[in-house]
């Protein structure tokens, strides 16, 4: 599993995302720039310039037509993937922590930061999947998050629910049409922020990562806790692997939080756990700083991690990864 190093960003990576067919990786960084890379060979194929601050988040629509990005310049921007043309800018009073398209690409949500004079909110826009179309300036829905601020959010199967993760370690379930709060669940330790929320392929369940050093697998329809993955380091990201029943976790102690910083003490490794058995089965080293995000290709053939060290590392899984089965799984497969 030799990694491909994507070097081009000048500051810490904040999010990395694959396109639906897995051939392109988009990355965002504190250096204000969105980069696009071929996942197969790591060649950079383009950049998107225009943001005036650190970027926190990026997403691509399911047809790889539109790209959304958001960050510290208090804007969500929509881009033409192919030409790099800026199509739309939505302005807010505070920074954008997360953007995500709905499963069919017809809606885009954004999570806005809480700040003096500005509440934490989740905004939803109707999106026309056409680079020539005029996009609406008005949001279709705005959810004000009164309790603990939202840090991450996404759409469930059928865009039925919006699920959000919060600063106080809870997750909440909203009706994606009306914005009504339906349910909340204290998934993680109180006062340990939910740092990531990623979906299963059919979006019936999701995984959350938290600074409380755990990741949790949770059902979208009733917020039932399915699985818990326990590590020894604060987590920034958690991803589910298609094909194999694994989860990949990334994190690490930030440099300012450890007295003497070394790669060993920082625990800058991606950890692979078995999704069903909750057991750690492997680690992948390489980064010189915390892993801020991990993403898995929708075809399950590779994953990539974005680090505080400014690099993206792409790992194409090899044969032993796909062959690995616990005895009981092999039994099942042979029945």
């Amino acid at each position, binding site marked *: *599993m*030799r990694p491909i190093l994507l070097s081009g960003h000048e500051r810490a990576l904040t999010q990395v995302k694959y396109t*639906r*067919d897995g051939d392109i990786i988009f990355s965002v960084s504190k250096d204000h720039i969105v980069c696009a890379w071929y996942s197969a060979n790591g060649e950079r194929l383009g950049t998107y310039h225009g943001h005036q601050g650190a970027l926190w988040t990026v997403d691509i629509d*399911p*047809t790889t037509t539109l790209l959304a990005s958001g960050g510290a310049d208090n804007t969500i921007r929509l881009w033409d993937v192919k030409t790099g043309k800026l199509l739309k800018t939505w302005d807010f009073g505070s920074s954008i922590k997360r953007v995500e398209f709905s*499963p*069919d*690409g017809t809606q885009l949500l954004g999570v806005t930061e809480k700040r003096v004079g500005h509440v934490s909110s989740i905004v939803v826009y109707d999106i026309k999947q056409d680079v020539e179309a005029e996009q609406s300036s008005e949001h279709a829905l705005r959810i004000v998050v009164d309790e603990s601020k939202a840090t991450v959010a996404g759409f469930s*199967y*059928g*865009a*039925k629910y919006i699920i959000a993760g919060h600063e106080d370690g809870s997750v909440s379930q909203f009706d994606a049409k009306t914005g009504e709060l339906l349910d909340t669940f204290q998934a993680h330790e109180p006062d340990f922020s939910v740092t990531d929320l990623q979906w299963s*392929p*059919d*979006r*019936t*369940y999701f995984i959350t990562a938290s600074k409380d050093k755990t990741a949790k697998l949770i*059902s979208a*329809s009733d917020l039932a806790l*399915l699985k818990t993955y326990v590590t020894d380091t604060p987590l920034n990201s958690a991803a589910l692997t298609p094909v194999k029943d694994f989860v990949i976790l990334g994190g690490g102690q930030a440099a300012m939080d450890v007295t003497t910083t070394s790669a060993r003490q920082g625990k800058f490794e991606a950890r*692979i756990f078995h999704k*069903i*058995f909750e057991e*750690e*089965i*492997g*680690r*992948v080293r390489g980064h010189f700083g915390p892993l801020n995000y991990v993403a898995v290709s*929708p075809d399950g053939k590779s994953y990539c991690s974005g680090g505080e060290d400014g690099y993206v590392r792409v*790992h194409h899984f090899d044969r*032993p*990864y796909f062959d*690995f089965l*616990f*005895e*009981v*799984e092999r*039994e*099942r497969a042979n029945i």
Partner: protein
Amino acid sequence: QDLLRKNKASRAIIEQRRRLLDEWLAWREQVEEELHDEVAAGLPDIAEVVDDGKNEVIE
């Protein structure tokens, strides 16, 4: 290079894993059935979108 750890396990652990795997598969079956019913009742189907993406790759 990632090292997948040797999969040694006592009988008790194997029994436990078997139980977890059965539970998971039963839960998935139930969820997939419910999802199928909701799609039949008019909820947008993600599987269709996912398949569309795959077809595009082939052409």
